[in-house]
């Protein structure tokens, strides 16, 4: 099957091509789902792009799309589902919701925006099988999941007993394989565990009340583990003290704790709060951005707050419990999970007239605009925690259009306006930079060599946008989207449902750990380790995963 997309302006930063700037148009050729070098062979189908902007399919490296906490959110927020019923003209009756859309709606809404790959950033091992079943029901998207590690009692016990790095690495490798994960996520390192022992906060150097292990130790040990196992994505960290004014110091200390090793700081906006001013809540975005700029080993995503009703769902039960008083509507769910992790689900309405919410909005944008290297910052709202992913087009306009941004800012809480330097920031993102943030850079940080670009050999996941000076309008819809070379969206409407794949990473590890895992599961968890493990055939309705083999370094 050969396709030809004719006359597009190709925007492909990974390969240094910018047809938007140069004004040149060219064809893109696809053979059996992959992009190939141009030939003069007859194509089975041709699509005239009429000079539209062509990019690789979008990649969201942090969006909560599956797992038990999302179902708890759906259960708790039936209001969201009822307020956003199925859209007319869909394939079936199974789409709806905005803050917590169904699997079907997630796949369709993302595809309409030109996204074709999305990673679930907080899969709990105990719930991994369920998360994979759910991901298999998301159409149009390739997925993958980061395994939440570091708060589990097995790991905490290892550290408390002074286990060597090799032992830790074997455990991490076993868990990645058993749960079919792609990367390691740490959520509030050790804090979720400490909350089970009734600790209510956990600083970077505070000892766990039971194990006496510090978050710093958790972090540095797991950073070493993923490095030595050769996992492509660095530790994906949701740091200590989420949402707490003054957590800027923790964030800065966390960056220093890496000692130059790679680390991804996720939803950095929630970790960039100072305590200045009469409200004891201020922006530390400038300080933190400066630190990020100075440390090339650090990458970040923002977790931008967008105004309106949403629901927050996190493994960070300690923080979610602390914030449950802010729930709107007033209800929340919390759960300790299986000697493994936890979750907290709190509905939230971000209000533009609220000082704190308005400043959170501004802090996120300050980070976007003050972090200089577009290859190390990613466009996220921490869906749905800062806002639903469907707000991305609006967010892109905020980044690309200073007048628009300042006009929005002028409508917000007055005190918040006085506490942000946003109005003075002149930077406007270019289209190329947006393409880096949403395509090229995430592919690079995830180690997905055949994604995020349009060179020969790339998976033919392609988004075509008609250029529009109103960037929100431009990114709100797509002229065409191709998934594996199949046209799935035409003129903004999903025309076909594609079955995606799930990316998993497969590191080498010392398999003698299996015996100890069996003992642990038998005695402590009360489940057989072999039933905890997920077979390849359990993924994607039997199709199995797409495996990325890891080249470990000598330990």
């Amino acid at each position: 099957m050969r396709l030809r997309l004719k006359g597009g302006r190709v925007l492909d930063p990974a390969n240094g091509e910018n047809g938007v700037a140069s004004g040149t148009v060219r064809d893109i050729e696809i053979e059996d789902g992959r992009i190939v070098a141009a030939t003069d062979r007859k194509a089975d189908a041709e699509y005239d792009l009429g000079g539209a902007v062509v990019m690789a399919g979008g990649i969201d490296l942090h969006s909560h799309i599956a797992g038990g906490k999302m179902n708890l959110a759906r259960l708790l927020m039936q209001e969201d589902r009822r307020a956003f019923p199925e859209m007319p003209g869909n394939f079936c009756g199974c789409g709806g919701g905005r803050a917590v859309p169904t699997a079907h709606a997630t796949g369709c809404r993302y595809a309409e925006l030109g996204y074709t790959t999305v990673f679930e950033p907080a899969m709990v091992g105990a719930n991994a099988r369920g998360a994979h079943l759910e991901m298999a029901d998301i159409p149009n998207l390739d997925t993958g999941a980061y395994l939440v590690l570091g708060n589990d009692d097995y790991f905490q016990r290892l550290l408390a007993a002074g286990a060597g790095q090799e032992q830790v690495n074997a455990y991490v490798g076993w868990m990645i394989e058993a749960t079919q994960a792609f990367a390691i996520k740490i959520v509030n390192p050790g804090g979720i565990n400490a909350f089970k022992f009734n600790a209510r906060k956990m600083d970077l150097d505070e000892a766990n009340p039971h194990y006496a292990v510090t978050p710093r130790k958790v972090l540095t040990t797991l950073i070493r583990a993923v490095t030595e196992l050769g996992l492509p994505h660095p530790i994906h960290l949701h740091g200590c003290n989420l949402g707490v004014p003054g957590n800027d110091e923790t964030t800065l200390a966390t960056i220093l704790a890496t000692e130059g090793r790679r680390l991804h700081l996720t939803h950095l906006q929630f970790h960039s709060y100072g305590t200045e001013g009469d409200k004891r809540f201020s922006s530390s975005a400038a300080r933190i951005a400066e630190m990020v700029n100075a440390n090339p080993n650090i990458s970040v995503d923002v977790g931008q707050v967008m105004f309106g009703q949403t629901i927050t769902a996190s493994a960070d039960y300690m923080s979610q419990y602390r914030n449950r008083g802010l729930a709107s509507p007033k209800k929340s769910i919390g759960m300790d999970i299986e000697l493994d992790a936890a979750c907290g689900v709190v509905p939230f309405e971000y209000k533009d007239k609220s000082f704190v919410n308005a400043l959170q909005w501004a802090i996120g944008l300050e980070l976007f605009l003050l972090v200089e290297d577009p290859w190390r910052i990613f466009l996220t709202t921490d869906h749905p925690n800062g806002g639903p992913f469907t707000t991305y087009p609006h967010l892109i306009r905020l980044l690309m259009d200073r007048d628009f941004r300042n006009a929005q800012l002028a409508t917000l809480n007055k005190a918040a306006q006085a506490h942000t330097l946003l109005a003075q920031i002149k930077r406007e993102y270019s289209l190329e930079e947006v393409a880096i943030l949403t395509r090229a850079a995430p592919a690079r940080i995830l180690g997905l060599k055949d994604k995020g670009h349009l060179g020969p050999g790339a998976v033919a996941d392609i988004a075509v946008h008609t250029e529009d000076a109103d960037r929100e309008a431009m990114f709100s819809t797509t002229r065409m989207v191709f998934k594996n070379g199949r046209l799935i969206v035409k003129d903004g409407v999903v025309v076909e449902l594609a079955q995606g794949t799930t990316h998993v990473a497969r590191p080498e590890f010392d398999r003698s750990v299996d015996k100890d895992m069996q003992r642990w599961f038998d005695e402590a968890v009360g489940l057989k380790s072999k039933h905890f493990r997920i077979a390849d055939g359990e993924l994607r309705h039997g199709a199995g995963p797409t495996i990325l083999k890891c080249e470990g370094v000598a330990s």
Partner: protein
Amino acid sequence: MAEVQTIHDVACGFCGLGCDDLTVEVEGRQVRATAPVCPEAARLLRRLDTADPMARVAGEVNSQADAAKAAHHILAAARAPLIGGLGVDMAGAGAAVDLAIRFGGVLDHYASEGLFRNYAAAQRTGWLSTTLAEVRNRCDVLLVVGDDPSATWGRLFERLFPATPLFAGANRRVIFLGGAPGEKASAQLAGANVVHHATTDAVAALEALGSLTAGRRPPGGSFGGIDADTLAGLAEELRNAHYAVVTWNAADLGDGDLVAERATALVDTLNVTTRAGVFPLGGRDNIIGVNQLLLWRLGYPLRTAVRGQTSSHDGTLFATEAALADADVLVWISAFRPEPPPDFGGKIIALAHPETVFDKEPDVFIPVGTPGVDHAGTVFRMDSIVSLPLGALRVATLPSVAEAVRRIAEG
């Protein structure tokens, strides 16, 4: 003679407790569980070397293919189908939702009453809950409300009270508020410090306990037949616990919704100063898994209707009994056990366990295999977090629900 094959570490999908250490002997078509196994699992896993029943249409023996065609015709002409029973594994649940999308229909599980009593509390205020391995290792005070749950979950206390929990220490406390622990529970709790307080009104007792735990002494000398001072003592124990857990079986309690609400409030109070969680019991025949799948596919839990490309949820109107009043076709699906369909005047398509005894011959009967006996499958445990892979114990001679539904859809 077939050889006896002994299979270890068999996972069990019947009651929702998710035991996965069963030993089963298979001899040709015969299956029998040895140990460890609870009486219900032993009964439901037992298979004799008997021939499978054939599919039937209007009582006449038919091929599976023709039965599927007949079912397709009935559904194609149906005005308001109810897809009920839903004792299915995850693949069967997905197929049932596909069927509802194709032909329209209300989706409910036959054991959903308890689930929705709990949801009355969970959806209004939310709750703070916990899972099996946490209870097993952390819980130092367990409050069991209602009757001894061992009759339904034969190995519950064995699973929750291992010889050496990681954190709970020795002398773990178990408070039965309601029925007395039976012989089985007492044996499994031999290492624990068990106390029983009979009550005539668990809701009143639980509510008073909640107030006392919050430091308020409600007016009155006794609550639900339990002396106020006794309850004050229990409140003190709960407050001093490191990790208290409240458990109940809402399906078994007429006022299960109120028990769930009071238990939730009690646990909320406890968490202000110490740690605690609710651990609601349930989970029969993969109801939790089916409910999970509905939530991610339709955005609604069970008791949801799919009509005209949209779905809507109503916990009262779309409960089986109420929905049957408006339905003209009942698709009854029960793969785990021979659960007969409820009394119904309209047409019945039964995708059912081969041993099902029908009060009234269904219009179409398609016998299906059992997940975890005849074919592999996935089921969720009662806590909605952990799911288990069930293996096949013998060669399947009957289709799975997923296969049978697919044939019906194809017509």
